[in-house]
């Protein structure tokens, strides 16, 4: 290590850094540190000339470590790693000091800021001295895919994958395909039939030579890692007995969908007690049967639709279920055509008419004389049986915001727009494929904006309403996006595995097994023979939990070793 040559490059980022931080002062302070062979500033290190400068210096001074003091590593670490690679240096010999986001942009005192920048850069220098050359490895990518859930999302993903010539195992818990869409009549805003839409999908899926449709089957186990999963699926044998089959797949798409909110949880609506209060799904059933009537078999004169049942309130779910508003408008149209002369009232909190053609649909719905009543979040309307003298079956009391009045709305049939909820098995599924769930039980995507279909487990994708409430177009879009992501990978045939992961030093491991349970990715396996634990690098996401927990210091986190962090620590405190 005595012959180390470290190059330090301090970026001005135009004036972003330089206007607060005295970059030359930073240079002066780090130049004195051991192993620093060259230290420079430049206006834009990330620019091509900036990177050329770094590469040139690597050549000229024979640098074997590089420190770039600039923006956040989350911004340009990949850029500079490439630069090192181009200059024939291992990309992991780079360390960045974040002197923009975490220094020049957040401090106004130039002296203090410069001092801090110097400390951070010094820390980077001391850390990088301990960096090791790491090699990315590549493994074969199995082209098969397991799609969990035979709803509209699952089928769409399956078809795209299968059309590209890859084998798809489509596992569905129930005995039929179609999911929740199969329970709906028409779709907003164009009022075309969900059934027609589905039949096309279903026939294609069932007849597709590359798709194995596994009905009444459950995924029991998902082992392995991206490109190389072994999935155990429990299905029914011909004699009806449950049988487990193992399928090798390279990717998994989770499309397990949602379940509807249980309306009886809101007592104000008397669901389950008042016979003519029905959920949106029960109403869909009436519509599909083509006869909209009350329990008594009469055609309803007054139909009331209550929005946000279970959604957008403090008691149940804070989130918006996104599809109910437009579905409710769809009902307005369907009621008017099923029962001409019926009066439809929409009791809503806010009208969420997002998405293509929806605002216009909202307008058209009000033109057919739908009465919109607005109520306050958490101030539930109350439904009660009407008196014999009334010309209606029920009366809904609403504190109506737009008029400021408390209104008593007559109703013969009340439709509750029940919101979407994470399925009760979502925890089980999350555990199965090692993905996380948010506080509402929806699966968490890898990045809310830039990577909405991937998950924190490489090779596992999510699509449809299992990630968050979604309508059909969004679900399909996400499903096909997932398919595209998978195809892009299978096309390459191999996948690269990050060089940053944890490893067990088997000469130090005492087999205490403290770490085994800690790994969220079950990447640590215990060899009972040798009585040693070891990390399956492909599964490891390098969180370092096991490293910190190992009582005998036998586990090392590549690129985040104790040595490296201690060095950084001494640096910032120097």
């Amino acid at each position: 290590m005595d012959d180390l040559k470290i190059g330090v490059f301090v970026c001005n980022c135009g004036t972003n850094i330089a206007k607060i931080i005295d970059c030359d002062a930073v240079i002066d302070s780090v130049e004195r540190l051991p192993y620093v062979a060259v230290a420079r500033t430049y206006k834009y290190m990330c620019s091509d000339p900036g990177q050329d400068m770094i590469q040139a210096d690597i050549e000229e001074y024979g640098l074997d470590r590089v420190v770039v003091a600039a923006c956040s590593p989350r911004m340009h670490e990949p850029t500079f790693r490439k630069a090192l690679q181009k200059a024939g240096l291992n990309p992991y010999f780079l360390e960045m000091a974040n002197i923009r986001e975490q220094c020049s942009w957040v401090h106004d005192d130039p002296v203090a800021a410069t001092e801090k920048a110097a400390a951070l850069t010094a820390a980077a220098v001391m850390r990088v001295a301990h960096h090791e050359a790491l090699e990315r490895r590549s493994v074969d990518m199995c082209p098969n895919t397991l799609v969990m859930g035979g709803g509209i999302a699952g089928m769409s993903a399956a078809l795209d994958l299968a059309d590209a010539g890859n084998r798809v195992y489509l596992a569905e818990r129930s005995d039929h395909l179609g999911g929740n869409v199969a329970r709906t009549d028409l779709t907003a805003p164009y009022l075309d039939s969900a059934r027609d839409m589905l039949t096309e999908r279903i026939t294609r899926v069932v007849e597709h030579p590359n798709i194995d449709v596994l009905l009444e089957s459950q995924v029991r186990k998902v082992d392995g890692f991206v490109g190389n999963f072994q999935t155990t699926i429990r299905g029914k044998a011909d004699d009806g007995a449950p049988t487990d089959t193992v399928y090798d797949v390279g990717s998994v798409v989770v499309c397990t969908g949602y379940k509807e909110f249980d309306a009886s949880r809101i007592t104000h609506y008397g669901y389950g007690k008042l016979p003519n209060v029905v959920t949106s799904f029960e109403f869909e059933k009436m519509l599909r049967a083509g006869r909209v009537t009350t329990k008594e078999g009469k055609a309803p004169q007054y139909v009331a639709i209550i929005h946000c049942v279970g959604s957008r309130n403090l008691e149940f779910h804070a989130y918006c279920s996104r599809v109910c508003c437009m579905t409710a408008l769809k009902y307005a149209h369907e009621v008017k055509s099923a029962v001409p002369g019926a009066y439809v009232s929409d009791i809503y909190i806010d009208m969420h008419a997002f998405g293509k053609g929806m605002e216009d649909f909202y307008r058209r719905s009000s033109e057919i004389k739908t009465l919109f009543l607005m109520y306050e979040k958490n101030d539930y309307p109350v439904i009660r049986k009407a008196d014999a003298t009334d010309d209606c079956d029920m009366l809904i009391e609403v504190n109506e915001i737009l008029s400021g009045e408390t209104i008593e709305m007559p109703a013969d049939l009340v439709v509750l727009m029940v919101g979407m909820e994470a399925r009760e098995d979502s925890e089980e599924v999350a555990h199965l494929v090692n993905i996380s769930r948010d506080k509402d039980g929806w699966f968490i995507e890898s990045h809310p904006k830039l990577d909405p279909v991937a998950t924190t487990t490489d090779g596992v994708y999510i699509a449809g309403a299992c990630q968050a409430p979604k309508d059909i177009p969004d679900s399909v879009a996400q499903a096909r996006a997932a398919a595209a992501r998978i195809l892009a990978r299978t096309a390459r045939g191999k996948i690269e595995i990050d060089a940053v992961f944890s490893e067990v030093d088997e000469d130090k491991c005492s087999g205490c097994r403290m770490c085994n349970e800690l790994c969220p990715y079950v990447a640590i396996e215990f060899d009972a023979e040798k009585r040693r634990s070891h990390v399956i690098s492909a599964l490891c996401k390098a969180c370092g939990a096991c490293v910190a927990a190992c009582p005998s210091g036998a586990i090392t986190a590549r690129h985040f070793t104790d040595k490296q962090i201690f060095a950084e620590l001494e640096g910032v405190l120097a």
Partner: protein
Amino acid sequence: MADDKLQIAIYWGAACGGCDVSILDTDEFILCIDAAADILLWPIATDGKYKDIEALADGGLDVAIMSGAVRNSENERMAHLLRQKSKVFVAYGSCAYMGGIPSLANLVPREEIIARAYLNNASLEPGNTTVPRLRTSLNGYDLELPEFYARVYKLDQVVDVDYYVPGCPPQPGQAQAAITALVQALTGQAEAPPKGSVVGASERALCDDCKRTKAEEKKVKRFYRPWQIMQDPEACLMEQGILCAGSATRSGCGVRCPDSGIPCRGCYGPAPGVVDQGAKLLSAVASIIDSKDADEIDEILLTLPDFTSFANRYSVAASPLQRSHRR
């Protein structure tokens, strides 16, 4: 005296004497020592005076084995003296190695210790005000006591140490092995272990030698003191909620405690390369707590009284913070 014999000294600093006993416990091997060496100083076993050592030329001692930590000026003086006179200086036992039990006193200010020992202590006659003083004049004599330092030091915080033999005390077998190794090295029969290495112990943690079965699932809702629970003699103690330092402790003792149903206390110190045994044990304990709720976690930890004295039982002086910093 035959000059081909090794010249050795065995001394104790702030120690209980257990280390010396562990050497005696090597039974007939003690005769081999005698055969191989002249013991110039060994307060508990042989006659010998400080001045004999002072009289020696530097390096006059082949080996100096010192047990015990440095608590006072006398411990320190002798440490320096032995270091100066010896070719190989060995820190013997946990106190010399890490501060040991005595260094638990580092968590308490010196004044409190004095007060507890000489002023408010049940075994004193009431109203006693006599406390040890550095100098006392008594019937014309000037008496001097060593200075009682503010804290305890492990040996290498005071002098340069060549080898460490861990244990409280080191197991006779290990002691024998260590001494043999040294003698062989000094007599050129074997290669000397690298300076600063821990001799007479394993390179792995205790679990490696512990016969108890270890399950993958280690989750506890509460901890037990050994006497609070009927333990399963086959299963890992930690899995049963009995706090055991084994996973964070260097092996070499022969797993005596866990084998006899007593959790390991960590006297052999941290596993190789570990900075602080206490911190590591802390992580180990934390990783088996079965809760995600901050309050429940606190509840569970209530069943774990005085964790610090367990985590750093033998290694307060060796821990990064070394002592209490209460103002």
